[in-house]
């Protein structure tokens, strides 16, 4: 059990976060809440990436105090995650801006009430 926890729990958390984010988007009654749910969904990829790159007992990939060649975790996923975070923040900003504008123009943020675009 402990071994499973150490080995796979992080992946399970990533799956759970993605699922919860999606659930939040589908059942949301407020566009700002929806935007945050999108951000939650996006953060599942961080957990996924960082778990994949982790090395038990590995040092951070910063070789200031430790000599180069010390066993370290994977630096590539950290770089990917930095990019990921910026992408998330920017998409979030755009969604929130659109939500703010919708509120100003219609007085509501409820997706159920904003149904003017029907097929």
């Amino acid at each position, binding site marked *: 059990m402990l071994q499973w926890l*150490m*080995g*796979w*729990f*992080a*992946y*399970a958390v*990533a*799956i759970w976060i*993605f*699922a919860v984010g*999606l*659930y939040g988007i*589908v*059942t949301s009654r407020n566009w700002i809440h929806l935007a945050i749910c999108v951000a939650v969904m996006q953060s599942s990829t961080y957990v996924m990436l960082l*778990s*994949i*790159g*982790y*090395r*038990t007992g*590995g040092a*951070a*990939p*910063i*070789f*200031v105090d430790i000599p*180069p*060649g010390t066993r*370290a*975790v*994977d*630096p*590539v*996923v*950290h*770089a990917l995650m*930095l*990019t990921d975070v*910026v*992408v998330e*923040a*920017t*998409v979030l*900003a*755009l969604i929130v*801006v*659109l939500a*703010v*504008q919708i*509120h*100003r*123009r*219609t*007085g509501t943020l409820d997706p*159920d009430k904003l149904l003017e675009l029907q097929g």
Partner: protein
Amino acid sequence: MSPRIRLALFVISLLGFAAIFAAGARELKPVGQYPGPYGDVLNAAAVPERHTTDVVTAINFDYRGFDTLGEEFILFGSVMGVLLLLRQTQDERRKENPEEEAGGGPQASDAMRGFTLALVGPLAVFGLYIVLHGQLTPGGGFQGGLIIATAPLMVYLSGRLEEFKAVTSPHVIEVAEAVGAGGFALAGFLGLLAGRNFLANVLPLGKTGNVFSSGTILLISVLTGIEVAAGIVLAIRAFLEHALEIELKGGKTR
């Protein structure tokens, strides 16, 4: 679809999605057993090749600098998008007395005012430090730029919108953002001019451990810091102006 049908269909398919995801993740190595090879190659190569001790920054601004170019322009594009979407439209007008409307902006108590103003300097300096030391310790343009951007925000928290606006003149900030973003792309051209590939590191590499080392990594990091700081300030300014100073003609929201 009615909400109940939607929820039922969604939950069923969500379980399917989770099952697929789990089945795939089960085939990964357990957490803590990263097999490489990409990370190990770079960990070994970054210090001797690039004279940086922070491998993550070396990846961000050198080995995979092209990704970071795209990422910086995602930030740039989003800030431009925010400016576009929050612009004052024809059915809106400026409030005559925004101070009265919002109760005079955030009412800062003396303690708050003192505290936030005292933070402005340290935040700016700390952000600058993070930017300049990105190639040595965790940090770099994005992280440091964000910290620098909070310094003008402290001015807003300490008083009113006008003071924030006075400190952040849009012309200067917009030019700064353009210089930061365009500069990164132009730094890539340095490589082409030197007869090598785009975004090649052509500046002198210096000595490992010095601030002025790692060639274009430092240059790009600084440019990114400028761009991120300027972009965030522009975006916040747009949000604040839109919320506090612009209203629909004919009164409040419908």
